[in-house]
């Protein structure tokens, strides 16, 4: 046993040996590991989403083995975790360049990566094999916390916080040793908030109103505030790197975005407090501030398109640039427009808890977060291969990346529209007409409009899966035999 344990770190390291490349700095080597696991979890997200989608059409499929609740939980959890892996990887990727020095605790970072990856594996295995437990604290500590998106049992929560603290230490200490910038300052403060907020989801309460009050602190203040600022930092760095955009302009935009995002997003939290038992003053506060939430996202579209235009779309990495543009539009349409559509309490009374939210969730998470991570994967693979050419005139006209970006966006958009139709139908038939009883619920679920929407959602899910397959194929082959070096942009600081 002890012999196995002593060789375990070596075995784990060799598991990720294929991610090694001589062209990377320490942080980038670690980032490659994060990106690899992120891609694996991205695949898991889509596969389990597909199983759940199929169960809407054939409810007996895997019934009693892998029930909808399990598939849906793995689907959403894999998404949250792969996005986090992507973000952590992206920050490690540019940490040394941005700070101008080597990462302070790289070894610690590598250990934290392995600890996190083992923990994620164990959590998923328990989800799949044990699934549920008795109504005791032990179940919440070791099996499943049963709170949407943050179902990870308490032991894993503590592990996640420790890993996040290690990550935070590496980021803050490296910038302190090297140099600070606007991007790094915003990033470091944002990470404090991100780690701190997670603690709001780590205690048990019987009072479900107070429970959901704090639960939304984690979910909303991550997804609609701190994650948005985190990707704004990643995008700021990417635009400088990809287009040679001037730091002063990028950082000014970053501050504008922070002011608008936190200014609307922090109190925008109130749009989750309409119906959970909290006072009705949240109608005005939540409605007003969350209605402002799309504004920073418009600013991001203007900012990225303007920057790209000023630099005449002369970018070092075309696939990455295309995904950055997809990110800004996706963020605005998915998080901004789709969120705004149901954010006022007058409509939310009928849409809350229907497929309308699932529609918003699909396009918002993809548009705001999956896209920027994929952009970064392309930046990473370019450097990984030795900073090769990745502009226009790629072999085969770059059909793989073009088709994969097309299929992924088309697939997610298709799922979104299908779910929106289902959501409209539910809001009218179940909620407005029949008054939300269980019979009303099933009347809406059995309506042909709903059933057809579920079929379309599954078909578009398959399109998305096809896009992902192509993306993986492209990432493993792009730039492989590329003799041309990457485009060098004149530095403009």
């Amino acid at each position: 046993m002890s012999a196995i344990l002593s060789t375990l770190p070596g075995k784990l390291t060799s598991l990720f040996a294929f991610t090694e490349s001589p062209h990377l700095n320490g942080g980038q080597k670690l980032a490659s590991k994060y990106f690899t696991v992120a891609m694996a979890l991205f695949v898991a997200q889509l596969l389990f989403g597909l199983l759940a989608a199929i169960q809407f059409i054939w409810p007996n499929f895997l019934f009693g083995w892998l029930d909808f609740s399990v598939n849906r939980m793995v689907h959403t959890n894999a998404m949250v975790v792969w996005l986090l892996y992507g973000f952590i990887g992206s920050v490690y990727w540019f940490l040394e360049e941005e700070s101008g020095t080597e990462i302070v605790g790289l070894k610690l970072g590598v250990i934290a990566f392995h600890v996190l990856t083992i923990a994620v594996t164990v959590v998923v295995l328990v989800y799949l094999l044990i699934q549920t437990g008795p109504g005791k604290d032990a179940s919440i500590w070791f099996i499943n916390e049963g709170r949407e998106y943050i179902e990870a049992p308490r032991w894993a929560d503590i592990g996640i916080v420790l890993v996040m603290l290690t990550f935070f230490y590496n980021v803050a200490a490296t910038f302190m040793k090297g140099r600070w910038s606007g991007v790094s300052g915003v990033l470091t403060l944002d990470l404090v908030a991100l780690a701190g907020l997670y603690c709001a989801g780590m205690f048990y309460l019987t009072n479900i109103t107070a429970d959901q009050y704090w639960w939304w602190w984690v979910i909303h203040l991550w997804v609609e505030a701190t994650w948005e600022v985190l990707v704004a930092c990643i995008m700021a760095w990417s635009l400088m790197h990809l287009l040679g955009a001037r730091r002063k302009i990028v950082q000014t935009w970053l501050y504008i975005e922070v002011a608008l995002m936190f200014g609307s997003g922090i109190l925008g939290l109130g749009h989750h407090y309409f119906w959970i038992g909290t006072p009705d003053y949240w109608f005005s506060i939540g409605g007003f501030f969350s209605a402002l939430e799309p504004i920073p996202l418009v600013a991001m579209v203007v900012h990225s398109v303007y920057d790209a235009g000023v630099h005449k779309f002369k970018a070092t990495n075309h696939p990455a640039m295309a995904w950055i543009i997809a990110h800004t539009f996706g963020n605005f349409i998915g998080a901004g427009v789709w969120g705004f559509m149901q954010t006022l309490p007058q409509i939310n009374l009928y849409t809350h808890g229907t497929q309308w939210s699932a529609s918003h969730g699909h396009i918002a998470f993809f548009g705001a977060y999956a896209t920027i991570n994929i952009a970064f994967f392309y930046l990473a693979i370019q450097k990984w291969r030795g900073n090769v050419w990745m502009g226009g005139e790629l072999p085969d006209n770059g059909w793989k990346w073009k088709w994969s970006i097309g299929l992924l966006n088309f697939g997610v958009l298709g799922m979104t529209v299908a779910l929106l139709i289902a959501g409209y139908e539910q809001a009218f038939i179940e909620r407005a007409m029949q008054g939300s009883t269980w019979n009303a619920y099933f009347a809406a679920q059995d309506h042909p409009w709903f059933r057809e929407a579920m079929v379309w959602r599954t078909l578009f899910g398959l399109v998305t899966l096809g896009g992902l397959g192509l993306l993986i194929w492209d990432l493993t082959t792009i730039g492989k035999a590329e003799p041309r070096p990457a485009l060098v942009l004149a530095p403009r600081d």
Partner: protein
Amino acid sequence: MSQQPPNWASEARWKKIAIWVTAGSFVLLIFLTFDTLSKTSVGGERVRAYSVINQEIDYRFDAQKNRYMPVIGKEAPLFGKVVTEAEAEQLVTLGKKTVQSKNCMNCHTLLGNGAYYAPDLTKAWLDPNWIDAANRENLMLTFLKDPVGNARANGSGRRMPNLGITDEEAHGIVAFLKWMSAIDTNGFPNNFTTINAKEQP
């Protein structure tokens, strides 16, 4: 394009604005959090004491407020036994922990939050699907302990899987659902016809 941006677009100015706006919003949120938590503590008007399970609960349209409101009625003890606040809390806690451990929220919604594969549980206690108030408790217990064997026909073909819910846990879940149905959810869901309204329109 001039090299020096105008004052309103300067980096330093926006940095200050970002800091002040973030700090100001956060301070407001902290203030509102204290207020909300004090107004939603158990035993208040919005979130009732756990011992509310000793009473009849209904959900009716309030003409003055122009929305649906929970209505607490005469004594109607759950499982025919009046319990103290401490006993009620213990029972509801067992129910809530079971609801979490069995991962109910990944098929159902609670207070409208969760997954959309199965019906909302916010007013499950009051749903007319339980036929009448006299049979409701037993129907709920029987269903929870063997949902596959007692599956109710619905056109969707969806069934709840057997989750190994014990008799004790089932009692806890029913208590939790009854207590939750008394929470003032600002009129969500709207236009809901309760089991009582069906009996006494």
